[in-house]
């Protein structure tokens, strides 16, 4: 099987670089650039706004240059006593959660994708139903707090979100597109089904693993609701819950006497929170991206 892999790689690497710019390429570049712009401008406005003085922000609206410059919102965020532990908690939840979720999802998806008689189809239905029917909050709450006793444990955040049916089906569809010949030739070589999964299925599916892993990571990184339900110790709050509380508190802070010098920068804070949440994900993104960009780079030279 290694030989077939090498062959495939050799084929894709074939140096076939089309010479000129075809019209479609030009259209594509322009199209992508336009969409990028539509995404970049708001991002810039958010970034710049998060550094703009609250008074100006509320008064004149947004601008492309942070004028007058202010770091009030970031100060408010970063002076919280529990910010470091919140980052640690979020990283732990994201890493452990993503690894577990990706492993379990891949296992299930492979079994469904293989179209095994009496197994695959019932499993697919079994995995699909939870996407539509949910028992609700109270049963889940009782389950986690009273039967599993997971209060204040990160498992309480990780476990309820462990398998997302949506991603199962994305992965199933990708697994099914693996070339059968490669699997068959492995069987001929005497590989067992498990071996095929670990040695061929998974390595060949790096792009989809990267995508699904990325989606799980994003999911866990942003998760605050289960944390709200099950984590009451403020030293264990993950980042999104901490930020969620911060913004909610600021919105209601008008009802409390506050130190007169300080007025909470509501607008600015919302924008800064967006930046603080996205930051780490955007930093981590290129690592996942490597797998599918690489594939595409090969693909793009086709033609």
């Amino acid at each position: 099987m290694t030989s077939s892999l090498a062959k495939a790689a050799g084929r894709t690497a074939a140096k076939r670089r089309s010479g000129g710019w075809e019209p479609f390429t030009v259209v594509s570049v322009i199209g992508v650039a336009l969409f990028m712009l539509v995404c970049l401008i708001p991002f810039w406005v958010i970034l710049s706004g998060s550094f703009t003085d609250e008074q100006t922000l509320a008064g004149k609206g947004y601008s492309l240059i942070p004028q007058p410059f202010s770091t009030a919102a970031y100060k408010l965020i970063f002076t919280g006593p529990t910010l470091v532990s919140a980052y640690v908690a979020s990283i732990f939840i994201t890493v452990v959660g993503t690894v577990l979720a990706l492993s379990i999802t891949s296992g299930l998806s492979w079994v469904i994708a293989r179209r095994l008689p009496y197994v695959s189809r019932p499993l697919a239905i079994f995995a699909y139903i939870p996407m539509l029917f949910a028992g609700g909050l109270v049963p889940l709450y009782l389950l986690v707090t009273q039967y599993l006793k997971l209060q204040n444990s990160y498992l309480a955040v990780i476990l309820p979100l462990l398998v997302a049916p949506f991603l199962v089906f994305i992965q199933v569809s990708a697994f099914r597109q693996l070339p059968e010949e490669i699997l068959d030739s492995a069987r001929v070589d005497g590989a067992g089904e498990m071996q095929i999964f670990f040695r061929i299925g998974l390595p060949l599916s790096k792009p989809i693993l990267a995508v699904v892993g990325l989606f799980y990571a994003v999911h866990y990184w942003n998760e605050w609701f289960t944390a709200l339900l099950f984590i009451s110790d403020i030293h264990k709050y993950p980042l999104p819950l901490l930020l969620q509380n911060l913004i909610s508190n600021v919105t209601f802070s008008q009802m409390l006497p506050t130190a007169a010098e300080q007025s909470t920068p509501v607008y600015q804070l919302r924008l800064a929170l967006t930046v603080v949440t996205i930051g780490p994900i955007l930093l981590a993104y290129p690592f996942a991206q490597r797998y599918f960009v690489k594939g595409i780079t090969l693909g793009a030279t086709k033609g």
Partner: protein
Amino acid sequence: MPATSPAGLSRRGFLAAGGGLSLAAMLGLSGCGDSSSPSSGKAADTLALLLPGDAPTGWEAILAKVNEKLKKDLGFAIAPQFVAWSNYQQQSLLKFTAGENFDTALQARWLNMIQLVASKSLVPVDDLISKYPNLSKTLDPQLLEQNKWSGKLYGIPQVNSAARFHHFTVRQDLADKLGAGELSTFDQLEKFWYDVKQKEKLTPIGISSNMPDLLVAFAPVGWLNQHDWENPHVSVQTFSGGSLPFYLAQDGKSTGSAKPIPFWEAPGVVDALRKVRKYYLDGIINKDALNVDSSTIKSQFESGRIATRWAMTDGLSSQSLTPLRKAVPTAQIANVVPLRGGKDAKPNQTFQADNFVVLNVKGRSNERAMQLEDWVSIKENHDLLSYGVEGTDWKPVGTDKFQQLSQYSFPGFALCWRQKLELKIKDITPTEEAWFDWAQKYDNFTLDPYASFVPDVTPVKRQDSQVNAAMTQYGNPLWIGAVDVDKGLDNLKKAVDKAGLAELQAEMEKQANTYLKGQ
């Protein structure tokens, strides 16, 4: 304090909560999830409290001091859990539903207090309070009397004034500049708004998306309802927040009949609607009122872009002055209550507290919870919890004010607001202080004939939820003047008729008359 609803409930949580209650059933337990039964001795050494918001800055240090003293005085400690405002309603209800054994929580009509009372989840406290001298000393008998629901008090009312009366905070510097001087009537206010619009190019009034139903048909007065400011004797009731307001007859007590009428039949209401429509068209109120949240309006006021803002008699609106002066160095603000007759107007008032500290029936120790409420009624303890350590977190200014020195701020209304112990903020403006003092005295108000009437929505739940939906769709645009009054009112009437107005009205009449009989 917001009688208005807490913003941003999570739909996901809300719907999910609807999933009900039943893993317990599957696993063979009672639906109430009784498994967290009080364990003896050790457990009651720490009381669990539910507080709204986020832990204040410097909370750990203060909590340690509080607990140290509590241990010494009473032999137990507290372990409060903070739940963010936007999730508080859902989370506290969930914890009650799951049968958890926390001891106290913040509850209110605008949260889930009515349901919790109906399901007997709360400990009645009327007979308990008298056993605790410090507590009963700081609670006015009138306050306790008016906050009884069907003769029982289901929580310790948390107030920092006798009455709650919404009014206006205006930019006094602009009023002076425009030659209006001190504003005291609605006509003067209106002229001020039009002058501001023409000469100053700012938005005269800022309205946020949780305010529409306060503007016209609201008790004790509709915020922009001139008729009410001049005759502040109306009683308005709804079955649930945001539902259709009914006006009840002021002479109900003598006639024995409340004769509820839908708001549009009440005197002055349609005129007020037309006026608001005019304000909307003339640009006196912000056109995005239905989509802008209260913190945005606050921010805009503090950056000098809005000339008038909603205020409550809570002694806190002067807090905007310092940030405002950063944007407009010469800014002055004043609080205006345009009652005809000013401080002698004696407007109606229900004296209903906006917040209660309630005792959980399943709490570990209701007795200790009461001891705690008694303990925080002692000035020294109250100040420690509310303001922090004297000298580092705050210092007294005069006899009745304080200056905040650190960032510490505690949601006192969820545990220890005592009208007689609360200090005013140092920067309170003279006008706000005057009106705040006015609101401290029960004698300055007329007791609303329906003061402690709390309508029970259960018999008309379905109709009410549909009327509620209709009110959001057709009522809100009407309240802020975004639609033509005649057309809008027509649409609204059609929608609520279909949704069950008649049933609501009949049920309101029945319940209000029963209430009157019991008076």
